[in-house]
């Protein structure tokens, strides 16, 4: 499997880019004291690229902006949020209008939680979006078969299902369309290992048919097992874009935070760094990781470019 994937990695270099996110930012307008409006910049300088046939994992801890990225791509951010930077889909600007045309069929979302299911709609009709044609029914029956969901489940309501079953239902919604881009926001917590593998192999199948998959997770191990490339998020910024095989050793990684994540892996001794991700309101100037970084110097408080090193990308001044 590894050899096969590495073969593919070389191929993706030449393959078309499906999704290209350039310096994305998301900010929320909030009422501060009195009637003064303040902007809360929760995401800045986010860069992600997904090629045809590729699974890209977006890895970051809680609150690093992963779900907002997913919602931004699909155009479902809250009304008080504004989006900056550029999102290109198949080489063209992904405007709100285009998002609305493409979502649900070409671009699909596997949402993060079961709260995204309507509590009062039966599972079957809900996945079929109320459609009753034989084609939709047949397709859903096949998907259910694949995920070991009994056909009777279609007649149940979300509250009658276990957490794991509801997860599989969420994944099934994505398989109903003909996705060219799958955005899966933490699709597997609560699932058994076997089911996780099955879901991941379905993503791989979709990728092999030419789709791009953006797998959002806080679980680096899972990302390394399934993805081709890993993009590391920290406090609303992408700090590194690396090939999965770069995670084989600490030295092949580029950013101090990615290296810290690497050291925290079980096989590398569970060494966690101290401190926490800064909250939006007290974000330091320049590099957000600076307060926890051993390599931090005076110039880290300035502008940090996203630069290419050794075939990957990094937002750090002090790495070669």
């Amino acid at each position: 499997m590894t050899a096969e994937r590495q073969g593919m990695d070389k191929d993706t270099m030449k393959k078309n880019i499906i999704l290209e996110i350039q310096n994305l930012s998301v900010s929320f307008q909030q009422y501060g004291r009195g009637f003064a409006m303040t902007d809360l910049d929760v995401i800045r300088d986010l860069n992600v690229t997904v090629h045809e046939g590729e699974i890209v994992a977006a890895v970051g801890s809680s609150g690093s902006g992963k779900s907002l990225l997913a919602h931004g791509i699909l155009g479902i951010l809250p009304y008080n949020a504004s989006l900056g930077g550029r999102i290109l889909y198949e080489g063209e600007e992904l405007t709100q209008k285009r998002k609305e045309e493409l979502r649900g069929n070409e671009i699909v979302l596997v949402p993060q939680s079961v709260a995204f299911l309507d509590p009062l709609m039966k599972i079957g009709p809900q996945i079929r979006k109320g459609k009753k044609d034989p084609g939709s029914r047949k397709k859903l029956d096949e998907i259910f078969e694949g995920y070991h969901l009994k056909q009777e489940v279609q007649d149940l309501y979300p509250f009658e299902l276990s957490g794991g079953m509801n997860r599989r239902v969420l994944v099934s919604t994505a398989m109903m369309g003909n996705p060219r881009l799958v955005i899966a926001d933490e699709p597997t917590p609560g699932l058994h290992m076997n089911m996780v593998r099955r879901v991941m192999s379905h993503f791989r199948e979709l990728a092999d048919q030419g789709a791009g998959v953006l797998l959002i997770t806080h679980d680096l191990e899972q990302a390394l097992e399934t993805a081709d490339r890993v993009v590391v998020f920290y406090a609303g910024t992408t700090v590194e874009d690396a090939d999965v095989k770069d995670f084989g050793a600490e030295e092949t990684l580029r950013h101090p935070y990615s290296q810290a994540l690497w050291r925290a892996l079980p096989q590398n001794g569970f060494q966690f760094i101290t401190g926490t991700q800064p909250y939006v309101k007290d974000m330091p100037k320049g590099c957000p990781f600076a307060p926890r970084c051993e390599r931090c110097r005076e110039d880290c408080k300035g502008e940090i470019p996203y630069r290419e090193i050794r075939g990957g990308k990094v937002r750090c001044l002090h790495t070669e």
Partner: protein
Amino acid sequence: MKSHFMFVGKQLIRMILLLICVSIAAFFLVSVSPVDPLQANVGQAALGSMSQEQIAKLNAYWGVGEPAMSRFLAWASDFFRGDMGISLLYRRPVAEVIAVKFVNSIWLLAAAWMISGIMGFLLGVLAGMKRGTWIDRAVKGYSLMIASTPAFWLALVLLMVFAVWLQILPVGLSVPIGMEAEGVTLADRIRHAILPALTLSITGVSNIALHTREKMIDIMESDYVLFARARGESSWSIFKNHGFRNVVLPAITLQFASISEIFGGSVLVEQIFSYPGLGQAAVTAGIGSDVPLLLGVTVISAAIVFGGNLTANLLYGVVDPRIRRGGAKK
């Protein structure tokens, strides 16, 4: 299923307790009223020309001087035997009087209840789905304006416009003046009910519309509607698949709870339009110290209002799968 019976049983017991409390309260309110029943109903002049004996008889008839407690117990024991007593003013059995008034009122109330429910629901849903647009602002503006307008004032305005200026609708009563009961047509009855029903509907709509709008906004901001959007569902599809389903539950509660408001409003509106319904009977009985009639009307009204809430709770169990199936599973 067993728990369902338990639920209904509990509700019925609650209803009986409530009715007992309501009747006690109504009774004592009347008994502490400063209105002297003889002066109010017989008149100062007539009283003056009567002999002591006659006055004593009348006092006994209206129950003056008898302790409130014993009067109440007498009334209650009759009531539980199915006898609501004799109306002092109408000199006919209370049950009969109420039946006549009830038939007059029920069409008025039912029409106002349906119209305000349906219109309020539609306006609220529309405003909530199109939040921030001119439709939303119009619905909100209308509702807030009506909510802050006294019902009697609205009734008077409608009366002025339709009955006095345009003269297309009658000023009051439920049938044309001086007409034999046999000669009254359904059309006559409807024409007389339009203005009171309209008043009640217009005021009823605003409350239901505002509440439905709030619910609809919550639903539109929910994660499941967000996901439906992410799946490319159109506004109509979102309403059909998710909005309606989820808003109809609170709407049921709201609709049945509004019975009490419509009932309360009818007391005032029937008074203004001299419409001889339950509401007017309540006012007449209260002012005229007709204790049996007042208690009869109070108990019946409370029973209807409470019955409405009970129906809402039962319907909820039928409509909401989490209750319907949740109980069955455990």
